[in-house]
């Protein structure tokens, strides 16, 4: 009887390992410096994590199907440069488009997101129509996206100068707050809630899990797998585009190297958060926990004064250890 109880406890610990790990991490840091447990810390970590949440959710959709997108970072760069170039203050000295009239705020944002959608759609077409493995397809398109961004960025009179002097109404999205809560955090929460609803309450979500879980079975069941993949890569592209816009707004500028390697942070967060490497398994709360773990490591280690380079080593360990514990859930028991 005692044994049974122990088993149950171990079971539930392994099922919820990721959340427990996050808690332990916070407790450990708070142990070294109790001032870590404050609203300011919470606010800062959430602020730093918000764009990452949006990127990770885009990546989550793709990883669920058993695919991957190595081009997320480059799409972020493209969207950041596009939106920033059209949203500079009129009196700024080095404007990207010197004679551009004041555009309504939404227009450049929509254009940047559309650019993300275009890359996502291209990925989707290459992957579903031509059956190119996602790894290769997105490896190719990310180089193209970087090329396009750099050419645009290099246009005279800008000539590859960092884009700055962004409009206040734009940067307000990235740094302003409503009732003490940063707008960007609210956006991230809204997107996470939408994602949770989509993946738990809609047929679209169930189909995505099914495709990742057994693509052939999904096809036989009459699911239009190709169309689904096309949609998923496009939606992910929109997420990355939107994240790029927010990055520009948050930092008040953009260069062609914005977002570089962000896809790896997103992929790591998803895997640490319990998304299966082969697809078909994963939850939105898990992904959020994954992002937060890295947020806490980033912020917390600096907070208690550890050499920032140690963060890399710890992050690497976390990825390997967390996944090796999490994967135990699916291994056939010997």
């Amino acid at each position, binding site marked *: 009887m005692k044994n049974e109880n122990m*088993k149950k406890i171990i079971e539930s610990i392994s099922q919820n390992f990721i959340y427990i790990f996050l808690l332990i991490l916070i407790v450990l840091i708070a142990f070294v410096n109790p001032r870590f447990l404050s609203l300011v810390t919470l606010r800062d970590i959430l602020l730093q994590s918000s764009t990452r949440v949006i990127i990770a959710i885009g990546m989550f959709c793709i990883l669920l199907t058993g695919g991957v997108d190595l081009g997320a970072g480059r799409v972020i760069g493209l969207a950041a440069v596009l939106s920033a170039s059209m949203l500079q203050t009129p009196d700024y000295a080095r404007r990207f488009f010197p004679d551009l009239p004041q555009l309504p705020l939404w227009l450049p944002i929509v254009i940047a997101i559309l650019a993300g959608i275009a890359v996502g759609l291209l990925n989707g077409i290459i992957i579903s129509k031509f059956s190119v493995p996602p790894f290769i397809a997105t490896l190719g398109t990310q180089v193209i996206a970087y090329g396009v961004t750099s050419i645009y960025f290099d246009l005279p009179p800008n000539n590859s100068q960092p884009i700055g002097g962004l409009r206040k109404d734009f940067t307000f999205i990235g740094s302003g707050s409503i009732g003490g809560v940063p707008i960007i955090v609210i956006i991230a929460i809204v997107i996470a809630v939408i994602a949770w*609803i989509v993946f738990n*309450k*809609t*047929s679209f979500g*169930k*189909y995505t*899990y*099914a495709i990742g*879980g*057994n693509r*052939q*079975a*999904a*096809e*036989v*069941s*009459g*699911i*239009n797998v190709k169309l689904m993949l096309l949609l998923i890569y496009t939606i992910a592209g929109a997420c990355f585009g939107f994240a790029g816009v927010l990055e520009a707004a948050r930092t008040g500028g953009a260069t062609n190297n914005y977002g570089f390697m962000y896809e790896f942070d997103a992929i790591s967060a998803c895997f640490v958060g319990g998304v*299966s490497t082969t697809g*078909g*398994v994963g939850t939105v709360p898990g992904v959020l926990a994954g992002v937060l773990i890295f947020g806490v490591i980033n912020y917390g280690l600096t907070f208690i004064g550890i050499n920032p380079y140690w963060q890399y080593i710890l992050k690497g360990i976390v990825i390997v250890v967390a996944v090796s514990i999490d994967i135990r859930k*699916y291994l056939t*028991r*010997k």
Partner: protein
Amino acid sequence: MGTLQEDYEGKHKRRKVKHLNGGNATCLASVPLKKQNIIKKVNSIMMDEFILEINNISKEFPGVKALDDVTLKVKTGTIHALVGENGAGKSTLMKCLFGIYKPDSGQIVLNKKRVEINNPSDALKLGISMIHQELHPVPYRNVMENIWLGRFPEKKYGPLSFVDHKKMYDDTRLLLKELNIDIKPNEKVANLSVSKVQLMEIAKAISYDSKIIIMDEPTSSLTENEVEHLFKIIKDLKKRGVSIIYISHKMEEILKIADEVTIMRDGKLIGTWPASELNIDMIISKMVGRDLTNRFPKRQNVPGKVKMRVENLTSSIPNSFKNISFEVREGEILGVGGLVGAQRTEMIEAIFGLRSVQAGEIFINGEKVNIKSPIDAKKHKIALLTEDRRLTGIIPLMPVLENTSIANILKYVKPNFLLDSKKMRNDVAKAVDLLRIKTPSLNKVIKDLSGGNQQKVLFARWLLTEPEIFLLDEPTRGIDVGAKYEIYTIIADLAKQGKSIIMISSEMPELLGMSDRIMVMCEGRMSGIIDGSKATEEEIMRLATKFIA
């Protein structure tokens, strides 16, 4: 074993001595008849040595007692069949023997010595090899590299050693020639048919020169001729003193080949009998623990008007099916027989829109339909239960709920795009009840269910789409006898409700027991359609081999 035997011997001697001392006649003839019998029995025990004894093995998985104090004794140079329903523990027991699982208690005695087998490589070293139920070849490597994988012959050049391809080639050729298997050593495995791959695996198991070979459903994808061939190989091995543990669901095969039969049920040993004392009905009733006087339910379906007509269906791939024409009526079960490779699966998947056709027309209710994908097929109320449940059926890590509803989920989308999960759950629960699917809850992931229950979930998946035509591809493959009967009942009920059923089956009794008519295919062509009530196995076999040169 050694001590046991000495014991017997000792007693035997003592008994003789006693008689001598008693001053009676010195020959055995004077010993009372009862005692003579005892001596004979002792003698026979001494002669039949057990090469392998698996004693009192138990193995528990979380929540399931997979093996409960099971004992299996295999005599030298015999074919020992191991039968039981799926989940009876046969494969688990063999996995314990082969070192894949570690038993919780019990011991393995090999050649009278107690052994510890911790992994398959230990087992191979001890002279135990295994043909696994699921074939795992390395597809893009050739036959010889697959056979000698992990023990390539090597040539040494000073401190360096390289793979000796020539020796490997010659050894492989010799091995295959000895076994009379027609495969080239340097053929890429991906190019071989499933049955050739199975023969290769058999050759591989034999190549270890083992004293014990475990064969876990070795004939699952072999043709009749190849099964005969395998039996010849097995008998040959037996002559050489090799013992074979033979697992199969095919009773006819077991009775034909086995010397002894051990029956298991629910992880427990039921007993071991000489095969000569058993018949099919006896084995089945011992396996399921109840008498199955009838292996098939009574069918009450009445075929009505023509539901679907297929005309001249021809694959766009050469050497696949061609010129297939047939019709199926409402409330009719049309069996499709033939050998493996007769292109039955290809034909049925083409009807479902999974494969392309070069020519041919399909009419449903007299109207010509155009089916290019499973989505089209679903619109025309066709359902397909595929041949390979694991590969193309279940979504392993998804709960039963979603696995059941996935083909029909759009029906539950509310105007606000969210799913009506309450209605969905209700409908699934109803289907689960109706088909008597055994699952602890609807949230259980399907891979934890038994094969029979997984298959029933797939039936439920399609039942929810309310189809009128069911295409069933080997609906009872790899399912235990009890669950088979339940699947047959489901099929019979569907036919009774007026559904049209096309059922591919490689099991003759199933074809004969379930079909109103039987269509037989051979080499991609239709070789005949016969009345199910008058058909015989011989006639089906004759048609199934009609075009084979």
